[in-house]
């Protein structure tokens, strides 16, 4: 395992260093004193690399990432996992806005809360199915334009589970929420249902992983029932044109 001290280091230099180590075959890189450096892991294609970050990475952490694991011991800012293809990002803290923007594959686990527009335009393709599990709460416009994949919101620490306008323009994928249907304004393209047995089977492996990462009890998670938000149509804008 190699260590880098990122204290006071310009993002470009830091990313160059990480990339050089990854290219030389390093399998685990630990970076300490991360403080606002952007684009860490941008476009990384290193399948069995793990990066441990200590501190607060900047925007666009893991943008375009395609198969690396990033663990963050701290909070993350906006755009984490932007247009991510595969890989995994685990955050032992909170995340900012547009987490998982246009994500096409891979997994994001956030221990705490996430900001606005989380999972906007997430989509799935063939066997690629992006998954995001959030331990706390999510801001407004959760899953806007969502076209595939799944988002699971656990609300383990109380607070308002989700903000207004969740699922606006949603036309694919599923948002699972734990607890009662919150009293918020939802996008008009969605419906909310109780979970069936097979839904629980679908989310179980991810909940197990969540419980493992953040050392919380799976039983406690299951104490409260889940509901799911799904789109009513796959063609929300199909009928707005003349011939």
């Amino acid at each position, binding site marked *: 395992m190699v260590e880098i001290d990122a204290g006071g280091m310009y993002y*470009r230099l830091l*990313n160059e260093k990480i*990339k050089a180590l990854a290219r030389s075959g390093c399998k685990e890189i630990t970076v300490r004193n991360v403080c606002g450096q*952007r*684009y860490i892991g*941008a*476009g*990384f*294609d290193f399948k069995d690399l793990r990066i441990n970050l200590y501190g607060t990475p900047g*925007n*666009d952490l893991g*943008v*375009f*990432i*395609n198969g690396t694991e990033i663990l963050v011991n701290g909070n993350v800012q*906006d*755009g984490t996992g*932007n*247009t991510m*293809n595969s890989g995994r990002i685990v955050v032992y803290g909170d995340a900012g806005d*547009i987490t998982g*923007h*246009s994500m*096409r594959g891979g997994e994001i686990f956030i221990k705490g809360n996430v900001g606005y*527009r989380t999972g*906007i*335009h997430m*989509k*799935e*393709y*063939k066997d*690629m199915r992006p998954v995001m599990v959030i331990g706390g709460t999510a801001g407004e416009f959760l899953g*806007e*334009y969502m*076209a*595939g994949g799944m988002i699971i919101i656990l609300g383990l620490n109380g607070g308002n589970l989700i903000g207004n306008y969740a699922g606006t*323009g949603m*036309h*694919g994928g599923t948002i699972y929420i734990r607890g009662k249907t919150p009293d918020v304004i939802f996008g008009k393209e969605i419906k909310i249902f109780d979970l069936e047995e097979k839904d629980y089977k679908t989310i179980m492996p991810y909940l197990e992983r969540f419980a493992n990462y953040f050392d919380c009890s799976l039983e406690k998670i299951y104490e409260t029932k889940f509901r799911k938000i799904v789109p009513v149509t*796959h*063609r*929300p*804008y*199909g*009928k*707005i*044109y*003349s*011939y």
Partner: protein
Amino acid sequence: MAKSKNISDFVIERDQNRCIKCHACVRVCANDVHFKDDATSEVASDDSKCVGCHFCEDLCPTGALVIRKNPSETRENAHWKKEYIYRIVRQAETGGIVLTGMGCDRPYKNYFDHILLNAAQVTNPSIDPLREPMELKTFIGRKIDAVNLDDLNWKTTSIDEIMSGLLELEVPIMFSAMSFGSISLNACKAIAEAAKLCGTYWNTGEGGLHQSLYPYADRAIVQIASGRFGVSSEYLSRAAAVEIKIGQGAKPGIGGHLPGEKVSQEISLTRMIPQGSDAISPAPHHDIYSIEDLRQLIFAIKETVDYKKPVGVKIAAVHNVAPIASGIVRAGADFITIDGVRGGTGAAPVVIRDNVGIPIEIAIAVVDQRLRDEGIRNQISIVAAGGFRTSSDIIKAITLGADAVYIGTSALIALGCHVCQKCYTGKCNWGIATQDPYLTRRLNPEIGTKRLCNLLRAWSLEMKEMLGGMGINAIESLRGNREQLRGIDLSEIELKILGIKHAGESW
């Protein structure tokens, strides 16, 4: 009540004396206009379905068909024109947005037609391009401010490294963004191969890169649009350059929907979405709400491609285009693409296409001037797009300040398009704006490539003639050289905005 099905834009005249009843027209028309009349066994037509693409007319072996504009007119009325009346009829029936294809067809003033070029006479000699070398070579990308030769170690640094990341164009003409999906794979192949052969570049549009186009990836500018369709680190690393698409001239400010029925298996593979699902491109990029955010995406891409490729930003020419362009330079883009109001599209609401944006001539002039005034013009290349019809339009655009141009519609015309504006129906008889295998077969990519190369060659020859006539031997010396232009029939404010003198004013 008015019935829209009676609207017939065209009438089909069939000379029954010439018609040999081969039924070729019956078989080919994707709009099912022609049919065999079982009663008379003559060939007949349902004019109301005809879009005026002239495919059958071109194909008819005996020249029996003529497609004419329907002479039936509503009472002449400068305000309530026929098209507005029938658009209302259609909307009253459907309650929907009216779509169209290609660029704005309104008769807004065309400034290219009000600008004249100079030529050398007596006091400076003109140059004969047939005998003397003429340089059309153009580099696109951020040019470094200075190279300090003393600091350079020529043993370890080559000129290639200094210039790295610049696109090298043999002609200042590139093929503009047309996605596989909006046009057929055969059309994409013809364009990509032509770009490779002619030493220029083509643009994938926002639909991803189809596997069969990988051999042309080193000549591809790949787009990143708000839907992020087909965008992956591999897509970025294969390309020659990356273009962030903020807007396009035909539909500034709005997103796009590729309806699920058009997302075939092949298209699903390139866009990286399931077959049959709607591909919705939101109006804005949801990670770009400001110039600072734009900078963030530009540098996220640069980080991904190790700063080795130019990253550009495409915007529609709108009222505030000059300050926006300045922001784009400061955001770190290497080139800016500006698409004027006449820029084409595969599908756009007709009200947007025809009423939003400004002409490219004006946009080039104000952007070039603003960047010069701010002392940052050298930092970026300007690529202009939106309705270039001839080589003289291109020469004028470059003289107003563009580095290079993108052509879309004129390239499609070279491939057969007759600008019928029905691209959004997916039934293009010329095999261009369609995915129907019966129709796409009509476009032979090899022949298409040849025709596109011919067009670029012809325009290059003409551009060299015009350059030589002005006594200039390199396109570089014409760039932004507005003294070579004079306006005709333009007001003072128009001349001021274009930054040119009126015809008759000397230097």
